């Protein structure tokens, strides 16, 4: 079993890398058997979620692939031209236009983005080209409301911040596909200050919207979701949202999901809280079985001989489409990652091994176990060349922009590379610009992922869509004159207030 995680998906040619792994599994007889195959993650079975979220309502959500959205919103062609030159930019843009023209992709550039309601993410932080996104896209949105447990950079851009209760201030559970366990998140302390259970915030908003809609005698609003006509009746929003008053808190949702999802031991939330964790049914082995609370979809073809959605109905390794001109896409052969001319070093990133999530990144104790501030790993030879010593502040830059972090000089990094654990919020950097200032990849769309009507290759945001890319670029670095110093009120800084 190749546990791939999500990192390979973040390279432009990540699709080929994964196709190569799958081909390798097939050629070595390691496919369709226990311990074989490749997996990015094992998703939870969605039956309980679907019963809860769509209770009798049919399709309700429009989901956009981030990459396509950003390409349209952030003038992707111009960004690519600046970074990779006109040839690459035009080539990608042709494929993009063709996909839009054929109706394969929705065109998100058409309607203005007037209001943003952010929940469950710190979008101005982790998005590729984060700083550019803040300046060219986010700054133009009329109203931004953010639900967040911490004062992230996204919160700093918002007109309204709705503080959300943290883990252990609310009742919930978690499932993670690489373990068979359902683990409780119980409330140990009441929410701090004005913060509230996120469900309750949403429920109060739904109630207010319903009251306004009733007062205005608002008729149902007609909409079209993936070709299906629907009508949203905002007067009933509160009823719909709470399943007619059945659901009043996150705890109620947790209980609903336990009761209504296959494979979950049928116990009360209180029992789960007492035991701490329980094991899902049918969850022995490296991939969990049909009756487990995890998705069985990926096994249906190998175990039950259900045909794949490919052209041939089998695992398909040859990709031949008139729409993608390069022969090098037909089979998973090596293609070098993209670089920016004049910048010799490749910066890569990954989750912190020690798992300090960005919402805890400003915890003084956890910081004291590292370097107390954001740091970037550099090779000793590369550092010497640039007269950089361990602990110096360095400015990492390329044609898009730059950011400052402390150099951690280590032989664990090969010459020609730099590495940084991500999750550092821009608020912690000089000028409030993190690596997002130098990641120019937001508009890199893989042409093969823009193709539709080719077997299973069809735009569907939750199944097949262009990925946002994070790695295909290069940088350089230099000593930043300032030593790590106590904050001065005159620190040069990009204004966070929107103009």
């Amino acid at each position, binding site marked *: 079993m190749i546990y791939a995680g999500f990192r390979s998906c973040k390279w432009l040619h990540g699709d080929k890398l994964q196709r190569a792994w799958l081909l390798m599994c097939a050629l070595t007889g390691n496919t369709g058997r226990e311990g074989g195959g490749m997996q990015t993650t094992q998703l939870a079975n969605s039956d309980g979620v679907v019963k809860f979220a769509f209770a009798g309502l049919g399709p309700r959500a429009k989901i956009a692939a981030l990459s396509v959205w950003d390409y349209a919103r952030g003038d992707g062609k111009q960004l690519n031209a600046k970074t990779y030159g006109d040839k690459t930019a035009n080539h990608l843009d042709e494929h993009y236009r063709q996909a839009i023209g054929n109706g394969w992709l929705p065109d998100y550039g058409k309607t203005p983005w007037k209001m943003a309601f952010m929940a469950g993410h710190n979008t101005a932080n982790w998005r590729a080209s984060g700083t550019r996104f803040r300046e060219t896209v986010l700054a133009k949105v009329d109203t931004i409301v953010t639900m967040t447990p911490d*004062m992230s950079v996204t919160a700093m851009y918002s007109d309204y911040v709705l503080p959300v209760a943290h883990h252990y201030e609310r009742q919930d559970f978690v499932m993670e596909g690489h373990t068979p366990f359902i683990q409780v998140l119980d409330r140990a302390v009441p929410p701090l200050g004005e913060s509230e259970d996120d469900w309750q915030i949403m429920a109060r908003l739904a109630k207010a919207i319903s009251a306004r809609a009733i007062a205005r005698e608002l008729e149902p609003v007609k909409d079209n979701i993936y070709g299906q006509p629907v009508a949203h009746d905002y007067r009933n929003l509160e009823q719909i949202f709470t399943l007619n008053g059945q659901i009043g808190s996150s705890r109620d949702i947790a209980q609903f999901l336990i009761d209504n999802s296959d494979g979950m031991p049928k116990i009360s939330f209180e029992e789960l809280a007492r035991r701490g964790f329980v094991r899902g049914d049918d969850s022995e082995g490296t991939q969990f079985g049909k009756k487990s609370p995890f998705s069985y979809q990926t096994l249906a073809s190998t175990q039950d001989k259900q045909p794949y959605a490919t052209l041939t109905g089998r695992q398909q390794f040859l990709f031949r489409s008139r729409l993608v001109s390069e022969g090098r896409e037909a089979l998973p052969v090596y293609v070098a990652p993209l670089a920016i001319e004049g910048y010799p070093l490749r910066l890569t990133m990954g989750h912190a*091994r*020690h*798992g300090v999530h960005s919402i805890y990144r*400003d915890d*003084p*104790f*956890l*910081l*004291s*176990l*590292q*370097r*107390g*501030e954001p740091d970037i*790993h550099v*090779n000793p030879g590369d550092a010497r060349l640039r007269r950089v010593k*361990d602990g110096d502040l360095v400015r990492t830059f390329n044609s898009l922009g730059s950011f400052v972090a402390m150099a*951690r*000089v*280590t*032989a*664990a*990094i*090969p*010459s020609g590379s730099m590495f940084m654990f991500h999750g550092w*919020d821009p*608020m*912690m*950097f*000089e*000028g*409030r610009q993190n690596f997002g200032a130098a990641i120019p990849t937001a508009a890199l769309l893989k042409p093969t992922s823009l193709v539709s009507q080719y077997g299973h290759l069809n735009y569907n945001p939750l199944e097949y869509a262009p990925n946002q890319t994070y790695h295909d670029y290069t940088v350089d670095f230099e000593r930043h004159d300032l030593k*790590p*110093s*106590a*904050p*001065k*009120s005159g*620190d040069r*800084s990009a*204004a*966070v207030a929107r103009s």
Partner: protein
Amino acid sequence: MPRQIAMVIDLNKCIGCQTCTAACKSLWTDEAGQENMLWNNVETKPGPGYPKNWEEKGARSGWKDGAIQLGGLHEDEDYGNVSTLNHEEVYFKGTEQRLQRKEPLRSGANWDEDVSSGDFPNNYHFYMPRLCNHCTKPACLEACPVRAIYKREQDGIVLVDQDKCVGTRMCNQACPYDKVYFNHMVSKSQKCVFCFPRIEKGEAPACARQCPGRLRFVGYLDDLDGPIAKLVHKLKVALPLHAEYGTEPNVYYVPPLLPQTFDEEGRFSDRSRVPLEYLQGLFGAGVEPALATIAAEMARRKSGEPSELMDLLIAKDWKSLFKIKDVQLV
């Protein structure tokens, strides 16, 4: 018969996640005066460790020719300077400063995390968790002029009686592992208590129980069926750290067997990645046979033969890590 509880830490499996450090911190040392105390710390080796350069002082402390040596005291800075962040200014006063510590960190508990020695791709480093060794010949106890430190009969845990301690800091000077800390708020020495209230209930210390790497074994040294006696005495793969300091420590380490170096063609050579002399400097002459045993048992297991050692170290069932009284599932 006095008994001795002990811990074995398998350095091959430690990922440096600091869960143990955080578990200890939140259980025992989260009060004023304890800010820079880490009864359990995890440092990167080779490296100066925590407190900074403790081994230099260690060599001047402990026992020498049957007498106690007082090695002096560290500067507070060596434990990492303590500072809060400027949250107030950034979020409530509207300044444009970045969010940062009011005082930058200059040397922290794991400042050298991932700072590797040697040259890529044959570089090497590993993480080493450290706590009080609850020594059989505790230098701290011997050095205390008011007899505030005692070693318990039933489990050998070494404790500082907080009512008797008058804050002479002699124990700080004598301990070669720098595992006694001074609380400036109450002017008393404080140190790891091996979670004795948990031990009394048959539960492992928090650092061991929380470790996601399943690499910290806890049990009695005289329990011949327990994991400690097997690893230390029977299989001889767990070794004391700096035995030459003379305190007879009761925390043992399985030395790291990192992959061999690469040769020019990118194939594994037969040269070990961590220089043997470096490991011998930490764990003594027992390193070579211990690593040979581990390598041989790994090979046995790979070829499908049973291996008691590999079963122990892999710890597929976490309960096999602990043999205190009964392992209780809480």
